[in-house]
């Protein structure tokens, strides 16, 4: 019963120039998606500190989505390349510390891809819904606090 009523909380970090604008386009095109996702706008995916992601999980997110301009299209030339490299290392690190890295999603959505934005958001929401609530992090967090 609980499975059915579970609504995942998804925090998204999106870049101002591509994905945020793509989400605007989804809106002006009146496309529909589930309201589970809440977006925090940053100028560029390069601005996203990996700690933001951990913080989002800590604050109860069941999934985190990072989305920016396609490689080569970055408004700031190379920001998304830096971001991409960072994520490769960061996912390794997440696995190492025992956080389920499959709850972290990356995508490239351009300003003209309103439809793709909806597809990505829907897919992320449904994947996380299947995975269920992310209690694991809170468990780790608690253990950590007890050790202190």
């Amino acid at each position, binding site marked *: 019963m609980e499975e059915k009523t579970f609504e995942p909380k998804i925090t998204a970090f999106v870049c101002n120039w591509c994905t945020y604008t793509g989400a605007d386009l989804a*809106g002006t095109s009146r496309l529909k998606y589930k309201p589970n996702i809440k977006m925090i706008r940053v100028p560029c995916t390069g601005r996203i500190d990996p700690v933001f992601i951990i913080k989002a999980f800590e604050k109860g997110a069941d999934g985190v989505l990072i989305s920016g301009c396609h490689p080569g299209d970055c408004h700031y030339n190379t920001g998304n390349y830096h971001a991409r490299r960072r994520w490769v290392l960061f996912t390794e690190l997440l696995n190492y510390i025992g956080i389920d890295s499959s709850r972290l999603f990356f995508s490239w959505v351009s300003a003209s891809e309103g439809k793709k934005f909806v597809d990505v958001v829907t897919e992320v929401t449904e994947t996380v819904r299947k995975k269920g609530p992310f209690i694991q992090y809170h468990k780790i967090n608690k253990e950590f606090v007890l050790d202190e």
Partner: protein
Amino acid sequence: MHEKTFRKACADSGLNPFLCEIANLREHCSWVHEDIVEGTKKAIDLVRIAVERVKRNVPLSPIQVPVTKKALVIGGGISGIQASLDIANAGFDVVLVEKQPSIGGHMSQLSETFPTLDCSQCILTPRMVEVYQHPRIKLLTYSEVENVEGFIGNFKVTIRKKARSIDESKCTGCGLCVQKCPIKKKAYNEFEEGLAFRPAVYVPFPQAVPNIPVIDRTVCTYYQTGKCQMCVKVCGREAIKFDQEDTLITEDIGAIVVATGYKLYTIDKKPDAQEIKGYGEYGYGKYKDVVDGLQFERIASASGPTSGEILRPSDNSVPKKIVFIQCVGSRDESKGFSYCSKICCMYTAKHAMLYKHKVHDGEAYVFYMDIRAGGKGYDEFVRRAIEEDNVKYIRGRVSRIYEENGKYIVKGEDTIAGMPVVIDADMVVLATAITAQPDAVKLAQTVGMSYDKYGFYNEVHPKLRPVEVSTAGVFLAGACQAPKDIPESVAMASAAASKSLVLFGSDLLEREPTVAKVNESICAGCFYCQKVCAYNAIERKEIKDRQGNVVKVIASVNSGLCQGCGTCNAVCPSKSVELVGFNDEQIYAQINALG
């Protein structure tokens, strides 16, 4: 989407516009969600995170930077010439940099131009001379842009002026050295596309601007053996300077127009030829009478190696049967490039027409995929070639060309008749694809432009901002952006010039104040930020004590260069560099507001 509108509304009501924050409830919530209850909950959350952010916003005012009212034009083809003249005629200084010894570009090589068949050099050379004589244009030929620093309105450009081995201030352009140079049959003649040779000291073509020779050090006897010096003996002005060296010139520039043009897809053994990707079966480079479009331009040109007579390069006989093949390398992803080179349909029709006008009893065949003649008077021009000049158009591809008894056997297919075609031609002209310049990527990295997988430069928006690149203050003109013909190149050059003039219209530029800032007390000077900055905006700053000793070196942001991406903020270990308007405190507050 409407941030500007609301910021302006704030400013009008007396509030600092940077204190305005938008919770985008319309596009991101009410228009996209059907569940009213859940949607409303989300709207509340969105408002909450916006409130957390706006609480931590600080009033900002736009950064003002001065504008240097001087333009740099890179490339002296027709696009660069047009852009330079437009800017200079508006009353601003222009530095025109051309890699070759003369301006003129590919247009100076052309015989006649479509769709009017007027002589290319006749319409171009007056423009070239106008550039040379213009008091506001500083012409730097045989020069290349080496480095670009700075930002819109305030670029610092370093130009390498390559050694001509000729003192330009003394040379009168009499041409005696060129005539007397003993090397006649060695050097590849770039202007004639390899159909002729040139001496070691040469002027690329008779109407070259400036009319000052260059010594090609790779073939000159003096540079090989230390002997000869024939040119020194004949020069009455003592203008030959064997020991001349490259010089570096720095210029303060406000706007940059990039007009570096194109190169033809070469599949042969010419110098600087690209790696052979395909079409070896056409025998281009192997058979002398299989030529490319630019070579045929030279053959048809009155100033060319045959003085305008259509003659075969191999034996100087008049070809009675000539085959033109379109789309060699274009529209063919497996062997060449997926894009359409755009001008080949038109110039092939022109070539066939010029051939028929000069060889009345000759037969001309064109193998084509489609005829793309979009443009004013263009389709009529192709119809004229077919109907009045009786050029035979065959829809289909050629599979193979081989030599047999002095003829070139062209085997192809006619897809309309549905049968194979064999033509015993005397000469074959391949309309090879237009490609980006081989050093296009290097220049893109120097200037800060993005480029597509073929090396053509990317405009910011394909429809609404077609001449701007992502680096502000840099504009595109001509075929360096994509294949295009002369009228389009000229129109684009004037557009790039007018964009530069818009910039020069104001004395101060306003820039977004949302840039990075360094907290000097905690910066440890690791310079990770410098490594990731795409704009070279991080500078080293020395902190000194009262005695003037350097205590530490820390990072400092040049707010003129910083574009506000925040990548430095993310990598800073001590979080001493922060992006104003998107600092860590604000983003953590937003994340917390979602919890």
